């Protein structure tokens, strides 16, 4: 049996627009969120281009998933529990797909687009890549769900629900959700951390819907009261041009590979973590965290030393 489902994202788009306007008004009246028209224009243009590209590339994914369906171990069909299982397992797959999108440069070249805004508002949620076809990472990673026995239509549907959920968490307008919700679900607070470039926040909170994956796999970082998020990427862009935003990391990979001195170096530039270089002259997130941590410890030691010296002074 097969069924046809409407693409939920198309239904959600008018609501996205309404919420964006509401957040703009909220930002204007309270000052608790930030919008800048050129940034908004770039994000929305990226979203529009991503939707167009999605229509084109969806055919590739659909063809692939339908092809592999014949090799599935089971046939779960459309029973109620399969929907719930598919939603949870799809989110688990999203976690790993997203984690690799930050730790493998080939995937980062695609995903960096989403992080390239220095703002964090609902338009940022729509800032999505145009050239996902270069990676098709979810197609490969999502294949296991179809091979297990979930229908491709179901996987596509729950995947769209996952993306729709992630829209509302791109906001500074909501400080914290109730404690129980923060414990289980991805929230604006958790996702602000993910979009921040403060060293303590780098490469944390990869979750889509359930934050439990980060807690299970050691990548969870709560938002700290005394560490305000600074959004963007380590080397922020000096352009609002959507084409440059789309292509910049691909361009960087091409240039690095062209200048590499061996196949091993070339592979490093493509598949090593973003910021990798053969001589270590650039900085990966790991290196940034190490430097930051060393400076922090040095600062604490100095403060402690000054405090103990100070405490001795009166006695002397």
């Amino acid at each position, binding site marked *: 049996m097969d069924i046809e489902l409407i693409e939920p994202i198309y239904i959600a788009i008018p609501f996205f*627009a309404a919420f*964006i*306007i509401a957040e*703009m*008004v909220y*930002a*204007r009246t309270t*000052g608790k969120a*930030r*919008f*800048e*028209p*050129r*940034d*908004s*224009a770039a994000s*929305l*243009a990226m*979203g*529009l281009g991503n*939707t*167009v590209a999605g*229509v084109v590339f969806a055919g590739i994914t659909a063809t692939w998933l339908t092809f592999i369906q014949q090799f599935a171990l089971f046939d779960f069909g459309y029973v109620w529990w399969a929907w719930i299982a598919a939603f949870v397992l799809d989110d688990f797959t999203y976690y790993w797909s997203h984690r690799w999108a930050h730790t493998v440069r080939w995937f980062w070249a695609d995903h960096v687009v989403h992080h390239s805004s*220095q*703002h964090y508002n609902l*338009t940022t949620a729509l800032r999505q890549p145009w050239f996902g076809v270069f990676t098709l990472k979810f197609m490969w990673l999502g294949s296991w769900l179809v091979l297990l026995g979930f229908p491709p239509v179901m996987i596509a549907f729950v995947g769209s629900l996952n993306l729709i959920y992630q829209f509302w968490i791109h906001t500074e307008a909501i400080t914290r959700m109730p404690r129980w919700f923060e414990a289980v679900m991805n929230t604006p607070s958790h996702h602000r951390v993910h979009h921040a470039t403060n*060293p303590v926040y780098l490469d944390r909170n990869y979750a889509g819907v359930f934050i439990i994956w980060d807690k299970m796999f050691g990548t969870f970082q709560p938002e700290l009261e005394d560490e305000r998020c*600074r959004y*963007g990427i380590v*080397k*922020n*862009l*000096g*352009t*609002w041009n959507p084409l*440059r935003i789309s*292509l*910049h990391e691909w*361009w*960087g990979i091409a240039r690095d590979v062209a200048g590499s001195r061996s196949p091993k170096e070339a592979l490093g530039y493509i598949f090593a973590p973003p910021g990798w270089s053969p001589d270590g002259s650039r*900085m990966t997130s790991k290196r*940034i965290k190490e*430097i*930051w941590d060393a400076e922090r410890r040095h600062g604490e030691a100095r403060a402690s030393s000054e405090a103990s010296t100070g405490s001795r002074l009166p006695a002397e």
Partner: protein
Amino acid sequence: MTTLLILIGAFAAVSALVGINVWIGGWSTSRIDSIEDAGRVLTQDLLIFEPGVTGVLAADGLAALIESKDGKSVGYLSARGDTFVSRLIEPGSVARADLRDGGVIMLHFKDFTFPSARITLGDDNAAREWAARLSTE
């Protein structure tokens, strides 16, 4: 035809949202208040940058250049919209530094993500001096 209409509609919707953003307002262009502030932002952004004593703030407050403590690079801070963007200018970073009347430097970077920048120093001599320094960086 339907696809074309949807595309036109989507383009109109995006334009409308940006128009609403402009109409509602609520943002202001960032300004760099002092060289010290620029040094703090550069240190925070570039992490390995230690500001030296030589630096210049653009007359309009939209840019700042600070030589590093070891004199091997220049930290460049640019106001962009309501935010700032930092770059470490090292030897080979600049493709061209042109001078314009009014002490203006037009910097062209070999950086796909930051193609060019306009720095208004308001002093022809200072502009000439910094342009020469940046060109050798």
